[in-house]
């Protein structure tokens, strides 16, 4: 199989994570987050290279969602630095709305707007944020819906769609803005098992199209098949990271082993 990540024509002798050639798309360093007395992130570093798919795993409550939400400032870190696509997210002068449209986010609960059709969900930001006219926005939305396999559902309301279809609309809503990176927070956890495959297929096609992605998920099969790197978090810290073969095949840390063992049951 051809390694998709190879950007340099040179010999693919890499075994570990590919060397980061350009500046990373996401560069979070020393992230701390407190919720009142609760210390949720305790100095996390995360760098995501262009076209890389980073998978974040870890027990519930370990801070995965919080880390992801810091990457588009839905949560503001207590301290640390986050650079996304060259822009300092925590700089007071940063126009956060301008940065956010370059960072797609997909949520566990889909979070579609129930009073709008699938197309309406996708066009809202195209029109209000990017200032596109109705016709152009509709065109872009229909193309995005086609990419997630829902071209014929453009006029359906969220309540008329299955969970899997809703999540694909949510993905279309994000990719229509042509983000530089996509953040997925347990995108399949709320789905009935038979609907998971469709969403993962869409994610795989995005990845094949070269999208940079950070995915928090328990779909270990998907991680094995598609991830470039797996990050294991526990208690607000990155415990271990490496290519999937290493993390799943020969984890170095006892905590990682314990977590994976308990997943098998």
């Amino acid at each position, binding site marked *: 199989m051809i390694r998709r990540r190879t950007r340099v024509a040179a010999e693919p002798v890499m075994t570990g994570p590919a060397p980061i050639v350009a500046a990373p798309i996401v560069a979070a360093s020393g992230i701390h987050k407190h919720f009142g007395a609760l210390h949720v992130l305790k100095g996390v570093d995360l760098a995501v290279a262009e076209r890389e798919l980073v998978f974040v795993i870890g027990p519930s409550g370990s801070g995965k969602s919080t880390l992801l939400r810091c990457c*588009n400032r*839905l949560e503001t870190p207590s301290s640390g630095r986050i650079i996304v696509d060259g822009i300092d997210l925590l700089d007071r002068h940063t126009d956060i*709305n*301008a*940065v*956010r*449209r370059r*960072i*797609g*986010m997909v*949520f566990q*609960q889909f*979070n*579609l*707007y*129930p*009073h709008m059709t699938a197309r309406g969900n996708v066009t*809202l*930001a195209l029109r*209000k*944020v990017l200032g596109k006219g109705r016709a152009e926005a509709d065109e872009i939305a229909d193309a995005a819906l086609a990419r997630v396999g829902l071209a014929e559902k453009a006029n359906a309301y969220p309540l008329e769609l299955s969970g899997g279809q809703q999540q694909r609309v*949510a993905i279309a*809503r*994000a990719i229509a*803005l042509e983000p530089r990176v996509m953040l997925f927070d347990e995108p399949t956890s709320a789905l009935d098992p038979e609907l998971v495959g469709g969403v993962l297929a869409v994610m795989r096609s995005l990845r094949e199209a070269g999208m940079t992605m950070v995915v928090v998920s328990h779909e270990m099969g998907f991680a094995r098949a598609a991830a470039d790197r797996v990050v294991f978090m526990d208690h607000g810290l990155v415990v271990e990271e490496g290519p999937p073969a290493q993390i799943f095949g020969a984890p170095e840390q006892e905590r990682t082993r314990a977590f994976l063992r308990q997943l098998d049951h």
Partner: protein
Amino acid sequence: MDEFIATFFNVEVIRAASPILLQGLWMTLLLVLVAVPLGIAGGVLLAVLSVFRHPAVRWPLIAWVDFFRAFPPLVLLVFIYAGLPFAGIEIGAFGCVAIGFFLNTSSYYGEILRAGIESIPRGQVEAARSTGLSAAQTMTWVVLPQAVRNVLPDLVSNTLEVVKLTSIASVVALPELLFQARQAQSVTYNPSPIVAAAIIYFLLLWPFVRLLSRLEHKAVARR
């Protein structure tokens, strides 16, 4: 029986009074047309402000809303009407009524809309913000349309109360329907104009009562 009809449904009297009753009706409608939009606009403002959790916004807002909901509207109106001239402000009966209604009804509309806003799941707001929509755009396009729909029966019901409440303007001599009916009654020594006014109020409000009833049925069916 004839005497009863001559007393309460005296056609002659009602015919004679009808021009001033009609004037009263127009004044009442004008009052509604001013008070309801003002109240809703103020209510939207109060509800949107309530999204800010900052204590400097939150506590004054709670105090404001509580005060005007607890203060009897009739007392408020008399207070404004009697008090403003002492403050050197002359705005006439209609202006006083408009201010009084704005203060009172916007607090009620505000509380209704706030409940509507709070009924919208936080996740939708986060999704909207994650696509780059500003807080104001998210409120305008995502939250408010759904919030209004969720509390529509309450909004209609409150509007009904506002329309009924316009009759208190008669105490500051604003020539609305009730005031005019009482004028006619005192001139003719016959209560028929009051009866006519009551019938007009009923005919005016009844369609909204029906609408409300249907909305409430739908709201129950949606659950």
